[in-house]
């Protein structure tokens, strides 16, 4: 029920005032903007990027830098559209990155593995990947039924949709939801235990 409690207690940001203050050169407004949107930007960058892409942090910084720069220049004519602007910037930056890789020949037909991509001087990123890998192994090991492990692989790795997975494995959608929900919850618990997930 943390979800609901937070939903009731959350304070919405006054986007119009925030945009105006950034355009007026108020540095504290920039900090407020980053605090308000950083987590959401990161979540969306990960959502739109390839899984476990080690360049996520850089993309998040690119998005925030682009946004702050544009807001300083008063480029957003309708401040009420700030969430749309943030979201479209995320999509633009992520798409541009993969387009750039495509031009370098690192396209989908010959993709590198997550571990092969550049990750210079970032032991924390390497550690996080190891934690993710270890946690997911444990999540899979804790699923007592092989069919439930197959649900996760089909859905997340093969990107089969819910109905396809349910039909192939002869399970009902309720069971599908339950497997995913418990796997997500367990994954979060394990990452919290290891201190690398947000509470």
């Amino acid at each position, binding site marked *: *029920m*943390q*979800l*609901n*409690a937070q*939903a*009731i207690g*959350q304070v*919405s*940001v006054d986007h119009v005032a925030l945009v105006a203050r950034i355009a007026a050169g108020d540095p504290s407004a920039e900090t407020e903007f980053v605090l308000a949107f950083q*987590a*959401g930007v990161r*979540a*969306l960058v*990960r*959502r739109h990027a*390839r*899984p*476990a892409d080690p360049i996520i942090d850089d993309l998040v910084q690119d998005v925030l830098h682009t946004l702050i720069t544009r807001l300083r220049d008063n480029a957003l004519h309708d401040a*009420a*559209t700030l*969430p*749309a602007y*943030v*979201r479209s910037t995320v*999509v633009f930056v*992520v*798409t541009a990155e993969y387009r750039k890789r495509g031009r370098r020949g690192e396209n*989908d037909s010959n*993709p590198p*593995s*997550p*571990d092969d991509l550049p990750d210079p001087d970032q032991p924390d990123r390497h550690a996080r*990947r190891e934690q*993710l*890998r270890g*946690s*997911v*192994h444990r*999540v899979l090991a804790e699923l007592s039924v092989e069919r439930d*492990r197959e649900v996760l*692989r089909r859905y*997340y*790795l*093969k*990107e089969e*949709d*819910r*109905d396809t997975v349910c039909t192939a494995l002869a399970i009902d959608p*309720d069971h599908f*939801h*339950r497997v995913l*929900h*418990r796997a*997500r919850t367990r*994954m*979060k618990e394990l*990452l919290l235990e290891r201190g690398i*997930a*947000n509470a």
Partner: protein
Amino acid sequence: MNRLPNNHPLSDWLERAWLQRYLERKLSESEAEWFEMYLLDKPHLIAVLEADNDLRDGLALAAAAPSGHGGVSPFRSGFGGGASKKPRGPAMAWAASVVAACGLGLLLAGPLSIGAGGQRAQIIASPERVVFDTLRGVDSPPLVYPGAAASSHVLVDVGLPPDAEHVTLYLAGQAPLALKVSPDGFASFLLPRAAVGKSPAPRIEYRRGGAVTSRTLDIPADH
């Protein structure tokens, strides 16, 4: 669809319905775009999305590792981020949340309406909500979230242990009703406001590890 009604967030249950469809990639492109704008400054939604991202990333890393499970390459052709791709499910018209509200409303209202005499289930746009959360302890009072003043029903959510089975609701003067448990572990039902405070109070029963557990739901009448 670029403007967001940030001062008017969705009700919790409707938000959950949207979130679930988003995570399942069942929203149309424009719906997913809208929901991504909506969730951007909402930590509780971001936390769920990040848990999903972690699971996806972890599976990809495990599959890519030499000792991993299955050996499926996470970067196979066409694998480029779920939300950026055109969704494969049928489009769900946005229409001010009506579709999701109807779907869930019918699901929730159905059993009670049948029990009340076979009347057609009503769509309850924003009912008051009473949450019995196991995390707060069985004896703690429920959380009450106000809804629309004109709502004729109260939405009751009951948190259940993950292994609870055969969940049944007992209401005075009605046949027992089997309840479904949501993926996040809640059984929900709509209770006519007129029935709140009447004796005996609603009771929920479930099986867990072979034992039957019964829980009386004392719903505050003055909320």
